[in-house]
């Protein structure tokens, strides 16, 4: 990955230097190897903190809504999955494609430090990636883990390694396409009885602390002011009440982004209580596939979407309600 990072820094420096772009959106290094944060770089000098490694899991596309309002062109480094969100934002006119320069970057799947620690490794001082192994150094010793066991949940159900938008790419190594079995988890939920499913979600959603991280990170949640932040909506999303907020906030949000959610998995990545929120969205995606034919949000930045276009052969509401897809 070091060679990829090196190439990225070189390209960013060149673009900034020749004035093609006014800024570059990427990641900057933190206190450790495993805590890089999204960042905007405006000068070549600032690039000394640029980093790209296995912990750059954050989807940067949503930052473009704000950053691209500024003067000049913005370059952004995008992993394959981020490019879906990007297309969707362009499609929804939240980001002006003309003002963005997309550099598609290689991704071999990103790591989850919490999963690494869940293996009993603590006081982690460094992580090294070696192919399908991860070497973790800690104050208590060194541990070698299988990469597959410590990848981000969203990477385990990767949609594929093709960038859906790009102006150039930095891909130095082969990216083996993982098996896409993302609907298996949904099928498991569908196989439950209603009561079991209700109990499952109740237990999961009871953990919610109303931090709104899922909403705020979600590229599909791009409303200028969320209805839940409107004092006259009569809803206090931050109140930890076990009725509305708990049972309905996440479901309403899932409805609101259905047909637009690209399954980027950020909601589950950021949840401090590890609630598998992506499963709500994924259920909708699976249903839409079933009802209207396969559709992947964000595959393109144009065209009609199943939920916003009408066809005579569309399902009747009653069919959808009964869950009887085609």
């Amino acid at each position, binding site marked *: 990955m070091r060679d990829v990072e090196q190439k990225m820094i070189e390209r960013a420096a060149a673009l900034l230097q020749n004035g093609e772009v006014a800024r570059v959106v990427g990641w900057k290094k*933190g*206190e*450790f190897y495993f*805590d*890089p*944060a*999204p*960042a*905007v770089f405006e000068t070549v000098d600032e690039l000394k903190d640029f980093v790209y490694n296995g912990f750059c899991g*954050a989807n940067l596309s949503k*930052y473009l809504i704000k950053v691209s309002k500024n003067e000049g062109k913005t370059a952004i480094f995008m992993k394959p999955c981020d490019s879906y969100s990007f297309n969707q934002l362009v499609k929804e006119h939240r980001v002006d494609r003309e003002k963005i320069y997309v550099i598609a970057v290689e991704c071999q799947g990103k790591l989850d430090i*919490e999963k690494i*620690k869940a293996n009993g490794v*603590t*006081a*982690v*001082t460094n992580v090294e990636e070696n192919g399908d192994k991860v070497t973790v150094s*800690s*104050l*208590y010793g060194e541990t070698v883990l299988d990469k597959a066991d410590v990848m981000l949940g969203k990477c385990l159900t990767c949609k594929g390694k093709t960038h859906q938008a790009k102006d150039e790419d930095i891909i130095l190594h082969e990216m083996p396409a993982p098996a896409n079995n993302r609907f298996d988890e949904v099928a498991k939920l569908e196989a439950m009885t209603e009561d079991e499913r209700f109990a499952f979600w109740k*237990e*999961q959603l*009871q*953990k919610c*602390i*109303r*931090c*709104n*991280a899922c*909403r*705020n*990170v979600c590229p599909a949640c791009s409303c200028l002011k969320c209805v839940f*932040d409107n*004092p006259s909506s*009569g809803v*206090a999303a*931050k*109140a*930890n*009440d076990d009725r509305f907020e708990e049972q309905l906030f996440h479901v309403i949000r899932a409805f609101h982004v259905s047909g637009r959610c690209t399954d980027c998995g950020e909601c589950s*990545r*950021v949840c*401090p*209580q*590890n*609630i598998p929120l992506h499963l709500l969205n994924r259920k909708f995606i699976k249903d839409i596939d079933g009802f209207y034919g396969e559709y992947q949000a964000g595959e393109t930045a144009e065209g009609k979407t199943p939920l916003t276009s009408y066809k005579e052969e569309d399902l009747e509401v009653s069919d959808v309600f009964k869950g009887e897809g085609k």
Partner: protein
Amino acid sequence: MFKIRKENLNDLYAKISESMGLYIPIKKAGEVNYHVWGEGKEVSLETLKTVRSPKDAFFPQTENMMKFKTEGKNIDIIDVRDEKRPFVLFGVKACDYKAIEVLDKVFLMDPVDTYYKARRDAITIVTLACSKPEESCFCSVFGIDATAPCGDVTAWLDENYLYWQANTQKGEELTGKVSALFEKGGEEEVKSQQEQTKTILAKLPFATLDLSRFKPENLNELFNAPEWESLSEACLGCGTCTFVCPTCQCFDIRDFKTRDGVLRYRCWDSCMYSDFTLMAHGNSRTTQMQRYRQRFMHKLVYYPSQNDGLYSCVGCGRCVNKCPQRLNIVKVINTLGGKKND
């Protein structure tokens, strides 16, 4: 000092629960948080950091305050508080215990918050020394000894035993209730564990954080530092850092219309939220940078300025672990504290 075999801890929990409530780290749906103990619950004292801090045991995320009944033009105010049953808060780490001192100063300082005080008075705190601190821990920077927390009772845990030392009268009373389960001893084991832990604590990467610039006299200089822009640029404006923080105390008071009147409740609020300072005629903090700055200035400068230099960060590292975009107070301390530029 007393000790009890680990496999008998369930008896201890059951005994305490006979006469008091017991809040203890319990694993539920994969995450460990403080919950009320009950037979069959999966207690996890080994978990270094619960996701939420124990603060919600006496400063709950949502708390009903009063009810209003309105009839015609008349308003009746009904206090809806019930008598607080005494309870034990078990397994509080040194950092979280220090955080309670930070909260006490806010809520118990005159004018007293009576809702907080009622719960606080009802608690007996059993702290638990740390034996396996991790890289995100930096309590020692704030003068906290993770191997010897205070509290009404201090406990230590090793592979075989839980060791128990009462420190206060409340602690003695609790000990009296459960002492039949204890045997004497443990001083040596505790001492050797403390020594071992201290060597790790000294080696922790954040053990050398430099707080020297975070003083009230530097308030304006720090407030006006240009670095806040880059420090906060990735901030999502979510409330994760504030809601997992053991010292964050901001709350909102709201009314909720019920079938038979109006319920006034308070709930945690976050200075990271865009409507936190919103008024009918304006907002004093309109950008995320301002909100982000407020949070860290409060922890490192404003609070100490009002409380004899006591920081309102205790180095628990929850924000370090939980910020979705990996922003945190350590990055602030290192960037504004001058270390990054040395």
